[in-house]
Structures are given as C-alpha cells and as structure tokens.
C-alpha cells in the first residue's frame, strides 16, 4: 500500500542519490584525504545497507501484516531472547569496529607531531579575515603584542617593529604552501572562535582565543582551494573566506622573495 511504496522508493532513491556521487567531496590532495575517503566509504556502505534493509523490512511488514478482514488474531509474543541477543551483539561489533577503524586516521592527524622540517605558518583569525604569517629567512617569528595591532595599516597580528626577528615576517591574507612539503599551521584567534577548513585536505580545526592549536599536513597536488570559516563568528561569518594556494617549491620561494622585497 501507499506507505510501503513510498518506503520502497525512498530506500532505493536515497541509496542511489549517495551512490551516484552527484554531490560529493571534491577530490582529495593528500594521502590523508585518500585514507579519509576510504574510511568514509566503509562507513557509508554499512550505513547504506542498514538504511536500505530497515526501510525495506518496514515496507514488507506493512504489506504482509496489514489487517485483512476476519483472519484471526495476531501472533501473541512478548519477544525472543535469543534474537535480541543476536542482533545486539551484531550491532555492537559493527559499530565498534567502525569506530576502531577510524582511530588510526585520527591518530595520524592529532597524535603524531608534525615532522621536524615542517614549514611553520602562524594563522590568526579575526572577525572577519584570515592572516597567515611566515617567519621569513631567519626562521624566527617576531614578537607581537596587542598594542601594535593596526588593521588599517596592515598589521593585523600586531608585529613589534622593534624586534629584529619580525622585520622579515611576511603576513599574507591568503595561505600559500609548497607542494610535497610538510606544513605545520599554528592556529590562533584574536577575538571569537573561528574554524579553518579545507575540503580537499579533509581537515578542519577550530581557532580558539587563548589557545595555540597545531595542525599539520602535506599537500601533494598544486592548485587553489577555498578556506571558508567554519564556526559561527558573528555577522560576517559567511564572508570570512580565503584561499590556500599549493604551489611548486620554486614558485613558493619566488613568492616569498617578492614579498620580502616589497617589505624593504
């Protein structure tokens, strides 16, 4: 009957919508993304099977057991202990198995430290723009202080001009990284909670005022990728967007050199 038909159509239609990958992740650009996609596929296939079976069984039940004229009583039963035990244990194994499978992926992102030769980039978020600071040739981040912050004059991170280490620091509104090199982001916020998200990296991390949060990755393909703020940060939350440009080492060095030259 009608509801059973809807459930059947639903079961098939939803599975198709996901399987057809019409709306899907953008292609990943690093090894982590590939591992991510595998774990997701594992999960979504299991979920898809369960979804399909549940809706199908529901539909079957509706058709098979609808009341038809005078056909006698329903089956009087208070349950079945063995069946309960069986499906409880099966569910537990499947769900916990999935959870454990994903742990390795998580560990590689957050338990492992960034490699020692990772390029450090300090990310500062504020209402409603991003700033990315590079340490420059001296490989030292200069001192910053609140009182030096001057957005209008292009000093959003509050670089202390008196500190020699800060003279070669480059602050950029977009994130630029060299391909095939480990990068370590140090995420900070000046005001409220923001969140850094790059779809192609399959990575996201909140930026919390008062905390310096590390996030490392190694991009393996060049290109320009969008970075939309992913934690409600006020009025301009939907406008707070920048890009990550992954470029060859040569292009990256050239860009840094050009920015240094500009400073002088």
């Amino acid at each position, binding site marked *: 009957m009608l509801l059973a038909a809807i459930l059947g159509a639903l079961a098939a239609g939803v599975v198709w919508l996901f399987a057809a990958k019409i709306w899907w992740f953008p292609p990943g650009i690093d090894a982590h993304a590939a591992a991510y996609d595998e774990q997701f596929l594992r999960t979504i296939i299991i979920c898809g099977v369960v979804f399909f079976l549940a809706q199908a069984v529901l539909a079957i039940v509706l058709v098979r057991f609808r009341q038809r004229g005078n056909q006698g009583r329903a089956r009087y039963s208070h349950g079945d202990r063995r069946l309960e035990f069986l499906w409880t244990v099966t569910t537990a194994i499947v769900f916990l198995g999935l959870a454990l499978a994903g742990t390795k992926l998580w560990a590689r992102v957050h338990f492992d430290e960034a490699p020692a030769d990772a390029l450090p980039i300090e990310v500062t978020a504020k209402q409603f723009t991003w700033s990315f600071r590079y340490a420059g040739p001296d490989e030292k981040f200069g001192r910053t202080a609140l009182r030096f912050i001057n957005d209008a004059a292009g000093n959003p991170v509050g670089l202390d001009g008196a500190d020699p280490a800060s003279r070669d620091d480059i602050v950029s509104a977009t994130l630029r990284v060299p391909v095939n090199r480990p990068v370590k982001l140090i995420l900070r916020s000046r005001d409220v909670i923001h969140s850094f998200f790059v779809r192609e990296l399959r990575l996201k991390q*909140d930026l919390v005022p008062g905390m310096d949060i590390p996030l490392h990755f190694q991009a393996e393909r060049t290109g320009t990728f969008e970075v939309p703020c992913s934690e409600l940060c006020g009025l301009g939350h939907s406008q707070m967007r920048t890009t990550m440009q992954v470029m060859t080492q040569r292009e990256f060095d050239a860009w840094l050199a050009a920015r240094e030259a500009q400073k002088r």
Partner: protein
Amino acid sequence: MTLRRRIFSTDHRTIGKQYYFLGLFSVLLGVALSLVMRYHVVHPKALGGAISPELYLSLMTMHGTLMVFFVLTVVPQSAFGNYFLPLQIGAREMAFPRLNMFSFWTTAASLAVLLSAFFVEGGAPISGWTAYPPLSAVGRIAGPGEGLGQTLWIVSIGIFCVASVMGSINFVATIADLRCKGMTLMRMPLPCWSWLITALLSLLAFAVLLGAAVLLLLDRSAGTSFFLPAGLYFNDTAIQGRAGGSPLLWQHLFWFFGHPEVYIAIIPGMGIVSHVLSAFSRKPVFGYRAMVYAMVAIAFLGFVVWGHHMFMSGMSPYSAVAFSLLTLAIGVPSAIKTFNWMGTMWGGRLRFTTAMLFAIGFVSVFVTGGLSGIVLGQPALDLYFHDTAFVVAHFHMIMGVAATFGIFAGTFFWFPRMFGRTLNERLGKLHFYLTFAGVYALFIPMHLLGLAGTPRRYSDFTSVDFLGALMPLHRFITHAAYTVAAAQLIFVVNLFWSLKKGPRAGVNPWEATTLEWTDAAHPVVHHGPYEYSSPGAAADFTMQTDAPNIRSEA
C-alpha cells in the same frame, strides 16, 4: 470556575493542555522563522536586502532555542506526561499539583523573556542556541544582538532550567509513590518509563545548564573571566581586565547539558511510539524489558558522550577517542529499540490509523537520522563534516522530524481522551503523507549539501565559490520546506476544527489496554500494559483492570 482558577489551574489535565498549546504556539513561530531563513538563502537580495546577516543569524538563534526548549522539551514530556502519567498509573493527580502549576507558569515566563529579546535594542542574539563565548560573552562589541538581547536569552534559559527541575520533581515523585494497586514498575506502559527516565535526565542536565548560564551572565556583566582569555581584541579595541578563562569550559558545561537534552527530546517519543505500535498491531510490545533497559542505557550513556560535539574544538584528541567509542556504543540500545519496534509489528494485525502511520514514520526517520550519527560520531570523519549542513541534516532528521512524529502520533492517539472527540482521519492521513514525503525531500538533500562541504550558519552563499554551484539543491530544499510547512496547516485546521466539531469519541475508541482508556476512580491492575491478542481472552485485548482470571503472561 473563575477565570483566575482556570488560568492557574492545578489540575494535571488542564496543565497538560496548557503545555501542549504553549508548544504549538512555539512550533508555529519556530517554523515561520525557518521559512524566512530558507527564503533568504535562495533570494539573498530580496526586499532590498532587508534580511541582513544579523537578522538572519538572530532568526536562526531563536529558531533553535524555541524548537529545542519550548517544543521538544515541553510537548513530549510536560504536555503528554502531565496529562497521561497520572491516568496511566492510576493516580488521581500528580504528586504536587501546585508545584505543577508553578512549573507551567515559570515555563511561560521563560518564553516571554525569550521573545522579548526580539524587541530590545540590537535585537535577538546571533550566537546560535549554543551561545559559545567569547562571541556571547563580551557584549555588544561582538555584534548586533549581543547586548541586551543575549542577556535576555541567558535569563530566559535560566528560568527554563528552574521550571524544568520543578517538573522533574513532580514526575519522579508521582511515579515512585502514586502508582495504584497492582501497578508495579514492570507493568507500567512504556510512555511512563520514558517520562521517568526523561525526568531524571532533565533534573541532572538542566541543573548543570543553570550553573553554566550563571557563569556566562557574570562574564558579561560582572567582569569575571570564566570563559574569557586574555588578549581579546575587537574592532580596534583591546578588551581589558579579562584573563585566564577558557571558551572550552563553556562548551564542556553546555554540552554536558546539551547531549542529555537531545535524549530528553526523543525518549518520550520512543515511549509513545512503542505504545501506539503495540495498540495498532494488536500485539504486545516485543521485548518490553529490553525496551526499558535500552532507554535506561541510552539515558546513562547520554551523559558520557558530550565530547562528540567538541571533536574539532581544540580539546584533547585522546578524549575524542573515548567519546567516540561511547557515542557509537549508544547506537546499540537505539538499534535494539528499532529491532523491537519491527518485532512488535511482525506477525501483527496492523490497523493504519493516522497515529499508527506517524509511529511507523518515526521508525523510518529514526533509522535515517541515527545512521548519519554513525558518520559524525567518528572524529576522523568529523574532520570534514563538523559544522557542515550534514550535521544540520542529522539533528533535524532526529529532532525536527522523528521527535515531532512522536508528538503527532501522541496527538492523534490521545486526542479522543483529551478532548472527547476524534481528529479527522482523512485530513490526518493527507497531513501524514505530505509531511513524510516532504521531510525526506527536505532533509536528504541537506546531507548532500554537507557532503559538498557547505558550512553551517551561513547567512548567504555568495562569497564562497564552491557554494554557488549548490544553489539548485538549496532551491529544492526551500521548496520542500514550504511544502512541509503548508502541510502542517492541514494539521492545525484539523486540530482546531475537531476541538469543537469533531465526532464524539467513546471512552476507548482504539480498543486499547491501558488505564487512560478507563474511567475507573480507584483502578486495580491485574495485567501488563500490552496484552493484545492474548490466547486466553475473549476479545483481542485485555485491559489492565480486567479480571485476573483472564490468562495473560504479564
């Protein structure tokens, strides 16, 4: 009866209806807000840009607050519970009728304070129903609505917490001490178990929220630094005198409340669904004891999974693993319940009343909503999906749809008892089919928006390139939303028309077994709650008060 005694009635049935209509008012307002939001998403420049980002965000905040607190916490528990708990356990009244009256009016006061935020300078807050500091804690400087509007929001929530504890006191005492003769705990209808478990959850969770709300209020108005670190800089102004606090502390406290809260929203619905499925399958609930233990397990586990809302927050990644395992563990009792619902219907003689359709629909959407939780419960996968439309789809499926279906099932089932008339079945079925198809059309595409990476809480999608390509999906969702909303008008018409003109109902129009379908003043119980199609009985149902010589297993 004088007007004053009617308004401040201590009769549990009147109070139950008062809660129900407060919830109805809130849901209509909440839906209206969401329709404005959906319209804005597809027509961002409409009305000359009248829906500014701050207006959009304030509508979103109030939509969430209204729905979570004043609809889903109020109707399944306080409305249906106050009306039917005493009836189902054979008590004459709730344990503390005057306290009951106070708890309703305190809830109403909380709603009034919340809505007043719309009308003050700066308007309603923009920080979402989750109100994360520092955005919610530094005042006007963080954005419009963050001045008086945010303060009123916090005060409203604080008042709601007090009302909730008052309600819990009543529910627990009533179930513990006022059950009639023969009504042992294991003979209680499942809604009563759900109301007991939910009352215990509320009691513990809302108390914590109250503590957190007080601390947030102090950070805003007394210069304290519970949630505020040093070095905050807004709009050319450095915030002075705050240091050492942590925004994460708020998140921990809030979600310690927030996760049990979503179980508070769904558990009574689960009880109602079990109750309705059994009645219209003419079969006992499959695995009654397992159903009870599953609800208890869900409630207990619900207290130790709060960190799954914080996987990306900067909290310890090691604790994320622990929270994840516990979160997926909660899927197990939920699955047990789903199997048991199917088991209840299997081998039954199904009667497709509107109440039954909504109960069946609940099972369908509960599975769908629960499964997206399996994705989100893994921190590794949450690295992409956190704060995307996928999360919004997940919780709307479970709360906005499943919990609401529980409310509809309860309404259609219990309306004859509450008002002495039946709702129109044809209108009911039309409402059901439009709603059921409509909510899937609405929320399945939202998962796809999330897969594509759409962040949540965006007031417009024109600044991010990849979001532009998703506008067709947004348009489809908006159309579905308007259709579903329109379908609810059928329900509202049905409800109000039937209140006055519906066909009169007998005492037990559904041929159900539990005490709310009898008129006995001092019932004595001899049977379990779900003795349908018992081989020893003359009819295909045995009322709990029927003579003890009828053979039944419970």
